[in-house]
C-alpha cells in the first residue's frame, strides 16, 4: 500500500517517463541552436550560448516551403475526401442492419491489416501505367485508401452513440433518410467529424512510404523532404537539426492545439 500509493514515488516515475518522451525533441531543438562545431563536441554540450544562424540559413531554403505546400495539399485533400466517403458508410454500419454487414466491416478493416508494400507495389505499377506518379491526386487517393477504414471505424462508434430520438422525430415529420442524415445527423456529429478529420490530417501529413515512392520532384511532402536532407548531408548536424526543427514546429503546434481531438481520435476506436 505504502509503495504503490506513495505520491512522490508515483510522480517521479511519471516525470521520468515524460522526460523520456520529450527528450528526443528537446535534443533536436538543442542541436539546432548549436554552432556546427558545438554540435559535434565530445562530450555533447547541454549548456552553451545559443545561435540562430542555422535557422536563418535554412529558412531561406525555398525547398522547405515547397514541402509545406505539398504536404498541406495532400493532407487537406485526403482528409476531406476520406471524411466525405467514410461518414455515410460509417452511418449505415452504425444504424442499419443488412446482410453481409459483418463481412463489409471486416473487409474495410482488412485494408488496415494489409502490409503497406502489398498495396504499394500494385499502386506503383498502376500509377506508372496511368501517369499518376508524382501527382497530388495520386498521393491523395493513396492516403484515402490507407485511412478510409480508420475513419469508418471511428465514426461508426461515434454515430452509434448519438441519440436516435431526434432522427426518429425528423423522419416522423416526413423527412426521408437522406434528409435526416444531412440535416439532423451530420450537424450533430460535427464534433466527431472534426476530431477524426484532424487525426487523418496528421496521419496523412506524417505518412512516409507512399509519399516517398509515389511522389518525386513535383510532389515532395515534408517527411520525404526531410529524408532527402538526412540522406545528402550526414555531417552537418546543426544545420540538419534546424531544418528538421523547422519542419516539425508546425506539427508540434498542431498537436498542442488539437490535443483533445487527437487523443480522442487515436483512442476512440478502442472503446466499442
Amino acid at each position, binding site marked *: 500500500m505504502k509503495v504503490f500509493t506513495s505520491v512522490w514515488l508515483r510522480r517521479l516515475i511519471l516525470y521520468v517517463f515524460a522526460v523520456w518522451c520529450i527528450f528526443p525533441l528537446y535534443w533536436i531543438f538543442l542541436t539546432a541552436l548549436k554552432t556546427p562545431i558545438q554540435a559535434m563536441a565530445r562530450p555533447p554540450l547541454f549548456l552553451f550560448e545559443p545561435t540562430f544562424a542555422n535557422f536563418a540559413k535554412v529558412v531561406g531554403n525555398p525547398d522547405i516551403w515547397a514541402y509545406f505546400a505539398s504536404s498541406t495539399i495532400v493532407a487537406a485533400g485526403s482528409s476531406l475526401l476520406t471524411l466525405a466517403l467514410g461518414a455515410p458508410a460509417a452511418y449505415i454500419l452504425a444504424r442499419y442492419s443488412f446482410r453481409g454487414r*459483418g463481412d463489409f466491416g471486416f473487409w474495410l478493416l482488412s485494408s488496415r491489416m494489409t502490409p503497406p508494400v502489398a*498495396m504499394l*507495389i500494385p499502386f506503383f*505499377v498502376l500509377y506508372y501505367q496511368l501517369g499518376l506518379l508524382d501527382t497530388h491526386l495520386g498521393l491523395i487517393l493513396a492516403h484515402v485508401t490507407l485511412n478510409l477504414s480508420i475513419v469508418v471505424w471511428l465514426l461508426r462508434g461515434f454515430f452509434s452513440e448519438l441519440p436516435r430520438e431526434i432522427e426518429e422525430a425528423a423522419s416522423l415529420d416526413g423527412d426521408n433518410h437522406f434528409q435526416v442524415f444531412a440535416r439532423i445527423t451530420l450537424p450533430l456529429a460535427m464534433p466527431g467529424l472534426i476530431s477524426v478529420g484532424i487525426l487523418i490530417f496528421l496521419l496523412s501529413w506524417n505518412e*512516409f512510404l507512399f509519399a516517398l515512392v509515389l511522389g518525386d520532384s513535383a510532389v515532395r511532402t515534408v517527411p520525404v523532404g526531410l529524408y532527402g536532407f538526412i540522406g545528402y548531408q550526414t555531417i552537418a548536424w546543426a544545420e540538419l537539426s534546424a531544418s528538421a526543427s523547422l519542419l*516539425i514546429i508546425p506539427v508540434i503546434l498542431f498537436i498542442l492545439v488539437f490535443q483533445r481531438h487527437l487523443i480522442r481520435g487515436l483512442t476512440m476506436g*478502442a*472503446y466499442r
Partner: protein
Amino acid sequence: MPLRQTTIQRAERSFILWMLAPATILMLSLTLVPFLVSVYLSFTDYSLTAPETINWVGLKNYSDLLSSADFWDAARITTIFTIVAVGIETVLGVGIAALLHHEVRQAPWLRVIYLLPMAITPIAATFTFRLMFNPTQGVLNHLLGLAGVSPSAWTAAPETALLSLILVDVWQWTPFILLIVMGGMAALPPEPEEASQMDGAGPFRTFFLVTLPRLKPYLALALLFRLIDAFKTFDIIFVLTGGGPGVATRTLNLLAYKYGIEFLSMGYASALAIVMLVFTLVAGQVFLRRLGLFDLKD
C-alpha cells in the same frame, strides 16, 4: 399493409446502397484491383527494368521465395521485432497507466507530453534518434557513461541494431497503449476496486485481480492495432538502418521494398507481399474471432 411495408423497405434499401456506394467503389478500385494486380504479377516475371515483356512463370516466385534464406531470416527478424517491441510497450503502458490514472487530474499536461512521440512526424523523430545513437558523439552513450554503463554501438553493430530499433518503437508507441488503457480505466465504474480495497486487498492485488481483467477488451484492441502496425513498421527501420548492418534488421517489409522498389522485380516482390498479406489476414481473423471483438454481425 404489405404494400406500404415494401415501399419503406425499398426506400431503406436504396438509402443503404447509396450511402455505402462511394466508400465501396473507392475501396474496390483502390484495394481489390491492386490486390488482383498483385496476385497476377506474383505469377509472372514482370520487372520495370523491362516493362515491355511479361512472362507467366506459375508458382516459381513462390517456390523461390519460400526456399530462400533471405525470406526466413526476414520472417525471423520481423517476428522478434514485433513481439519484443509490443511486449515491452504493453508492460510499460499498462504500468504507467495504472500510476497515471490517479494523477491525471493534477497534471493534465502529462497527457500532452505522452501524446508527442506517436503524433510527431516519425521521420523527424527517427532523425534525432540517429544523432543520439551516434557511437562517438551521440548523447545516449554520453548519458550511459555518466551512469557508469559502457558505451553501445547502437545501430552500427549487428548485435545491437535490432534492439535499438525496438527502443525507438517503444519510445514511439508505449503512449498509445498507455492512453488507451487510461481511457479504459476512466470509463470503468470504480466500485469493484473500492470493494476490493475494503476487503483488505492491496493495490497490487486489486490491480491485477480486479482492474486488469476488466480492461481486457480495451487492451486486446490496443494490442491488435499495435501488432498489426509493428508488423508493418517501415519508416524507422528504413531511415535508421536500411535493414543493416548487413541484413541484421531486414524485416519482410524492407525485403519486399528492396525487391520491388529498388530492384523493380515486381513479380517476386508481389509474391512476397501476397505471402505477408495472407499471413496478416489469417492471423487477424484468428485474433478477432478468438476475442469475439469487432462483432459487427447481427
